[in-house]
């Protein structure tokens, strides 16, 4: 399954891009509306980009009333990315979304500002949300983590149904003329091809540590990149930064991925999942959706 990475596509302004995907993931929705950070919010680096959008979103209440019906009208399979600043905030949003049939799954953005990324904290949030919804919960982890495998095990134990790997990692770029940070917030999240080896390592390690299905993301630019995330252990792949330059990427990457699978005599993405591991992994993640 090919999805978009949360925050990298607005299905309402670009429905035809969203329709190329197997499933659309919303930008992270927080309890209160957020305008986001002041400009400058984006900058380019060597084979990557930095962003400090700052979770601009209408807030969960308005999202439920205004955005969700519009998104549902597009007929897309829909995941909602949920953010917050405490386990209770996450759980409240999950509870509000639980009753909405148009929402297929919830992705918890556990790499949110001001939210501690320690394994217990992520697990606490997942546990609180688990109690609030019966929908599948995908835990999105940050690669800025000495032992991401431990986090994966912790959120699995807390009741997550899947992992989304990875969010951006903190980076900084200076303006060559002023020597000041390009971004207003100074540091921002690094995405794009620069993130790919880091994402591959995270997926590889989490697949060893946990039986959960994984949405792999980070610098996917081609079908080969998608194939490699699958090989490292992902069961699905999400496209982020590539969408900015190439709104046709979902169709292109899907075609390239099919060709790459065929080259290795594999029938479907599932057959490629985990093949980079030395020995057959002892488990097969559940298909989940």
């Amino acid at each position, binding site marked *: 399954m090919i999805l978009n990475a949360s925050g990298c596509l607005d299905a309402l302004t670009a429905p035809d891009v969203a329709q190329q995907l197997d499933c659309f993931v919303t930008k992270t929705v927080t309890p209160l509306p957020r305008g986001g950070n002041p400009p400058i919010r984006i900058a380019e680096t060597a084979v990557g980009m930095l962003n400090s959008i*700052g979770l601009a979103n209408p807030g969960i209440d308005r999202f439920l009333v205004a955005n969700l019906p519009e998104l549902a009208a597009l007929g897309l399979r829909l995941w909602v990315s949920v953010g917050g600043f405490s386990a209770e905030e996450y759980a409240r949003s999950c509870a509000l979304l639980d009753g909405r049939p148009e929402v297929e799954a919830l992705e918890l953005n556990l790499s949110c500002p001001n939210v501690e990324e320690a394994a217990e904290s992520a697990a606490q949030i997942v546990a609180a949300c688990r109690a609030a919804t019966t929908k599948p919960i995908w835990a999105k982890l940050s690669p800025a983590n000495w032992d991401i495998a431990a986090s994966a095990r912790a959120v699995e134990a807390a009741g997550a149904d899947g992992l989304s790997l990875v969010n951006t990692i903190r980076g900084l770029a200076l303006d060559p003329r002023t020597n000041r940070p390009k971004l207003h917030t100074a540091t921002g999240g690094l995405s794009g091809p620069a993130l790919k080896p880091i994402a591959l390592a995270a997926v590889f390690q989490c697949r060893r540590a946990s039986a959960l299905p994984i949405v792999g993301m980070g610098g996917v630019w081609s079908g080969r990149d998608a194939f490699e995330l699958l090989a490292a252990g992902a069961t699905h792949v999400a496209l982020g930064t590539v969408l900015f330059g190439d709104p046709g990427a979902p169709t292109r990457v899907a075609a390239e991925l099919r060709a790459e699978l065929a080259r290795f005599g594999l029938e479907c993405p599932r057959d490629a999942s985990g093949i980079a591991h030395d020995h057959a992994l002892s488990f097969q993640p559940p298909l989940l959706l």
Partner: protein
Amino acid sequence: MTPRRELLRVTGNERVGPYTLLRTARGGVEPGRPGQFFMLEAPGRVLPRPMSLCLAPTGELAFLIDPVGPGTQAICALQPGDELHVLGPLGNGFRLDVPRPLLVGGGIGIAPLPYTAQVLAARAGGRGVPPAVLGFRTALHAEAAVLLPGAEVCIEPTYVTALIPAAMDVLACGPEPMLEAVRAQCPGSQLAWEAPMACGYGACYGCAIEIDGEIKRLCIEGPVLTAPGSPDGATAPGSPDRAPAPGSPDRAPAPAEAA
């Protein structure tokens, strides 16, 4: 509907003062309305770069580019026969149904005006090209004025605002301080703003600015925004009553961290 993205062949690369006029085959890409923009692939870079359409010769598109950084330099280095992906037209262009159009450009802000003049002239039938005033930093930069024959040109320390007569329907593009000055001086003027853009079609929220007290995406709401008021003193219907201040953090909401 997201606009068309196509791989276009470069057909020309000419120097115009310090700028480069890059011509491409048009393929199936529409030139769109004057003031709209395109995202041009920048070879070797992760993100494309937003560019106004400068000219639309038959079967071609032409962009005027100031090589200020790695992306624009990579685009300016393209030679005839090379190919690049072009996405567009994007955003909202100038409203052209105005009685007394005046084109106002500052520096590379001249870029969208030649195509604007051409379309206005075509609309006006025999009544010729619209008047234009242009300001430049140096005589070298002012060489770009050849792209807008008949325009009145000034060079710093004279500012282009000194050349704008009253009660005209201003269509302006230029650096932020110039646009701020034009907005103050010319009620109802249509101003083409800039902001850093990663996508150009509403996907990244990188281009957000404050419009009407709300954070909006310039690529979707703009890049052309109408200043409050009208040349006659009335309020232009349907136009935002507060103009944006891209890049001015004091107007933006309280900072938070990361995305």
